[in-house]
């Protein structure tokens, strides 16, 4: 039998499990603690901030006292609710499922997320740490990663917040649609944000030059600090300045970012600074965090077929004797699969035949 201390946990875990454990270890290393929440919470919590959620609906049901409850569509709001702004700062990591509508059918789906939230603290250090951890998180998946970084505060200075076509203009920017932006008087300055150099240092130089008159020095400085930090950690080629990264302007006010992994067609990581959510929830403080969508990453984490140390091809009809033979191997710490049909046998280090006469005999295959 396998015993705890002899067990090689690595082998038992799927690649997904291993990635999740590595991510948790990374966050713990930087002082984030595990946040646990209930699967469902009062619906009021989400209704009051429903625009913060990308999907509008939650699965709701009445509890025994008739109170409307919701299967949680979001983790961030729950974490903010537990936050006391009198605290100096609080740092949480979570691995949770949220339930939202999605896909073509608009059916409810379970979306597995892992992420961190940094609440409180000052303006500079927390956001640099969170962005660095976003980049390091992408690295854990063993694929080329890119972190695209934008800035909602900068966009706010370039766009008339009250303008009727605000959301339309932002929609065009999100799609990198310069041709339609240029056709609108108010869109021209946003169009100039679309074709930035891929190198982040060059991109910031270009912005400082083109948008000199727009009073965005402070925002550019913030981006410069991020780029400097990334470059000093060897990530200059992995970070992009990209203003198609746009989160809800009513909640996000500073740096916003998205992560991509080579071979995954969709955004795998979403994050940003959302001080305005805290303000709306009457807990004025700084806040920044991100979530990784595990289901999007799954396509590159799918496990190889399960490997075993030994296979037994069984011809014996006595099950008691067969289990004795299996125990004989597992007690040596081997993993075993039993087959009745030679065609089904998977490759393994060792192969045995358990004969009709209950003799276990190792066979050596070419």
């Amino acid at each position, binding site marked *: 039998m396998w015993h705890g201390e002899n067990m090689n946990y690595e082998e038992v875990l799927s690649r997904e499990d291993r990635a999740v454990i590595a991510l948790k270890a990374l966050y713990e290393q930087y002082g984030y603690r595990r946040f646990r929440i209930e699967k469902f919470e009062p619906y009021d919590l989400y209704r009051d901030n429903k625009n913060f959620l990308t999907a509008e609906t939650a699965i709701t049901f009445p509890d025994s006292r008739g109170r409307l409850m919701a299967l949680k569509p979001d983790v961030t709001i729950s974490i903010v609710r537990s936050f006391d702004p009198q605290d100096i700062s609080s740092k949480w990591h979570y691995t949770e499922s949220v339930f939202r509508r999605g896909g073509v059918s608009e059916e409810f789906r379970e979306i597995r997320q892992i992420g961190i939230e940094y609440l409180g603290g000052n303006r500079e250090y927390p956001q640099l740490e969170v962005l660095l951890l976003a980049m390091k998180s992408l690295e854990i998946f063993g694929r*080329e990663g*890119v972190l*695209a970084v934008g800035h909602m505060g900068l966009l706010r200075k370039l766009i008339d917040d009250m303008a009727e076509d605000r959301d339309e203009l932002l929609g065009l920017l999100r*799609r*990198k*649609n*310069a*041709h*339609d932006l240029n056709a609108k008087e108010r869109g021209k300055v946003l169009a100039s944000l679309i074709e930035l150099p*891929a190198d982040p240092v060059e991109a910031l130089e270009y912005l400082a030059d083109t948008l000199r008159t727009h009073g965005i020095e402070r925002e550019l400085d913030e981006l410069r600090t991020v780029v400097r930090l990334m470059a000093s950690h060897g990530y200059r080629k992995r970070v*992009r300045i990209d203003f*198609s990264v746009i989160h809800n302007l009513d909640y996000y006010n500073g740096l916003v970012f998205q992560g*991509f*992994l*080579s071979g*995954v*067609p*969709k*955004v795998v990581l979403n994050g940003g600074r959302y001080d305005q959510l805290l303000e709306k929830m009457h807990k004025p403080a700084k806040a920044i965090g991100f979530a990784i969508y595990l289901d999007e990453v799954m396509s590159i984490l799918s496990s190889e077929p399960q490997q075993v140390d030994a296979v037994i091809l069984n011809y014996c009809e006595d099950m008691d004797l067969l289990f004795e033979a299996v125990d004989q191997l597992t007690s040596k710490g081997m993993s075993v699969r039993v087959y009745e049909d030679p065609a089904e046998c998977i490759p393994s280090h060792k192969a045995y035949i358990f004969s009709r006469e209950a003799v276990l005999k190792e066979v050596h295959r070419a």
Partner: protein
Amino acid sequence: MLKIAVPTGRMGEAAVEVFERAGFDCSGFNGTRKLIRQIGSMQIIRVKPSDVAVYVEHGVADVGIVGKDILMETEPDVFELRDLGFGACRMAVAAPEGFRDQGDMILKVATKYPHVATKYFGAKNRPTEIIPLNGSIEIAPLVGLSHVIVDIVETGTTLRENGLVIVEVIAESSARFIANQASYQFKRDEIEKLLSAWRLR
């Protein structure tokens, strides 16, 4: 290698011409029924026009060429990098000559673009019943299936021949160059090389 989804049909033929003008050898391309072709370091995948954006959004193709009408209808999560100019047409509301919307009944709208139509009349607060059809939209008002239609209009010949006129223009449409969001991040050089070969800035 850059994978490009190109629509079959007229817009696809125009796209192939653009490739040729940019110096890519596409000889015999429009005659063949082969759906996957290699041109230099690019792979061309030919799919139904309404499916181009699906291929790109899911990353099976890195980039694609698709009509704005289809982007408006399906609103895929992709980057729309260029207006290629060709395949120009208008998305419009058309009705039998002399029809006037009195606003006193639910307006029946036949269309291949139910999402666009719903959004357009929704923004105007006009109560409608959208009747989705897959083709020959012009026939709907003639046989009494709908009051008006929402469709793309190129020259207007089909409308005229069926006694229909444009009542309102919803939007201008033409071929657009789209890119998958992740492909844009990882294959930006190749995408930009292709665009500059086209000189469509």
